[in-house]
């Protein structure tokens, strides 16, 4: 087993920021590859964030045997339920340790992710390269080889360095992050018979009332109702503020999910919008998209020629 270290030859694609993918097949491979990385980084005095799916967290804790306060364990199934909020968590962690070259383990895609979630997680992996370019950080991303082949192929396009039990090499298939994001912008599937609400500024309060009642009658739990209303409010408010003064809200339900989609004439000029925690007291605002990512289980954004589409998913309990 070859342990990834920031000083290994294959890592020198970006002299400062390192973003390798580790492909593993067995639990033993995972524990060796990830566990040894954590031990080495912690022993060097670096703060380490470990964000992997819950079932693997305890295994790692026991295998690594790290009692250091410098290692933080997070259940990625919770913190990264919506792939669109992972990058904010990683940047927060790196921001808290600017002088100590933080190290991160992030496993955003696990067996069982839906195709739409995996696509947004791939977008997240590409955006990592934009957000951390030139920053002294290492982010190791484990990939289970049981994942669909298309997901594994995307990992080669989003990681400058890839490795397995035999070692790490520069990825020959690495792509510009903007290209990968463009490829993730697949057309969204049309719903059947959604509730459609056209709105302008004077309709915003009515829209919240209607969306709230609709969610209640559609089975959304009281616990998630607040999240739903806050997210719908931010999306519709953004349409009025930035999307031409009006928009269209569509609501529908699938077997286990409520979906709210807002369409307007806005544009998304920065792929990293909403991927970093904003200052809530900023007079310039900038809280809406970040909040949507925090409140929803999945957020898909598309920019067709007609404007902007924001589709928000909340899973029914």
């Amino acid at each position: 087993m070859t342990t990834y270290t920031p000083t290994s030859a294959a890592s020198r694609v970006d002299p400062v920021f390192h973003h390798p993918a580790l492909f593993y097949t067995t639990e033993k491979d995972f524990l060796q590859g990830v566990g040894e990385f954590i031990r080495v980084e912690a022993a060097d005095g670096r703060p380490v964030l470990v964000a992997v799916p819950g079932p693997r967290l305890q295994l790692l804790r026991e295998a690594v045997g790290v009692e250091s306060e410098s290692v933080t364990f997070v259940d990625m199934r919770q913190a990264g339920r919506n792939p669109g909020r992972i990058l904010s968590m990683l940047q927060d962690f790196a921001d808290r340790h600017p002088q100590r070259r933080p190290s991160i383990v992030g496993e955003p895609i696990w067996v069982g992710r839906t195709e739409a979630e995996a696509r947004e997680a791939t977008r997240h992996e590409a955006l990592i390269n934009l957000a951390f370019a030139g920053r002294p950080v290492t982010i190791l991303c484990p990939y289970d080889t049981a994942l669909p082949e298309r997901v594994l192929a995307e990992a080669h396009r989003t990681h400058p360095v890839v490795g397995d039990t035999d070692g790490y090499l520069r990825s020959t298939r690495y792509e510009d992050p903007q290209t990968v994001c463009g490829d993730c912008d697949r057309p969204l599937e049309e719903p059947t018979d959604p509730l459609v609400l056209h709105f302008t500024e004077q309709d915003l309060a009515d829209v919240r009332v209607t969306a709230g009642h609709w969610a209640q009658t559609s089975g959304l739990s009281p616990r998630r109702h607040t999240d739903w209303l806050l997210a719908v409010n931010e999306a519709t408010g953004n349409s009025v503020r930035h999307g031409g003064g009006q928009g269209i809200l569509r609501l529908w339900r699938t077997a286990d999910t409520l979906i709210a989609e807002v369409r307007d004439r806005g544009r998304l000029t920065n792929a990293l919008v909403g991927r970093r925690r904003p200052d809530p007291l900023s007079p310039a605002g900038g809280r809406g998209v970040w909040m949507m990512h925090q409140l929803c289980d999945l957020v898909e954004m598309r920019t067709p020629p007609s404007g902007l589409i924001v589709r928000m998913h909340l899973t029914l309990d």
Partner: protein
Amino acid sequence: MPLTAWCFYDRRLLAPDALDVLTGAHLTRAGAVPRSHVRPGLSVVPLAGSPGFRLSGSAGYESRRVAASTSAALAASPAQDITLDLSSLDHLDVATLADIAHAARRRPSGTPLRLVGAPPALHRMLELFTELGTGLQAVGQ
């Protein structure tokens, strides 16, 4: 204070939004029902028994001027203790909460702004933005 004050506003000279703000700043009114009373918007009235305001309805981007006016009044109030009753509020957005938080930080007395009956949205937003809770004291109904 034993006082009755009548305030008169010429509907022909005021924009509907401005009239909504003025209507919300009075405990009672006479005349035709203003727009805010037939739509689920945000209304604000002074509390009868102590310094402060009661917010009713739903706060969002469309009610930002009402929220800004209320926050300005809160920030400028010389009262030591001041209360914001949110128990009749159906929804609160983050921009309005930020306005309230700004006002709490600017209060001349330096005492926390007392929030009564905060809706679930306020607690959820404070989970996301803990710093907005500085200067606020949330209490029960």
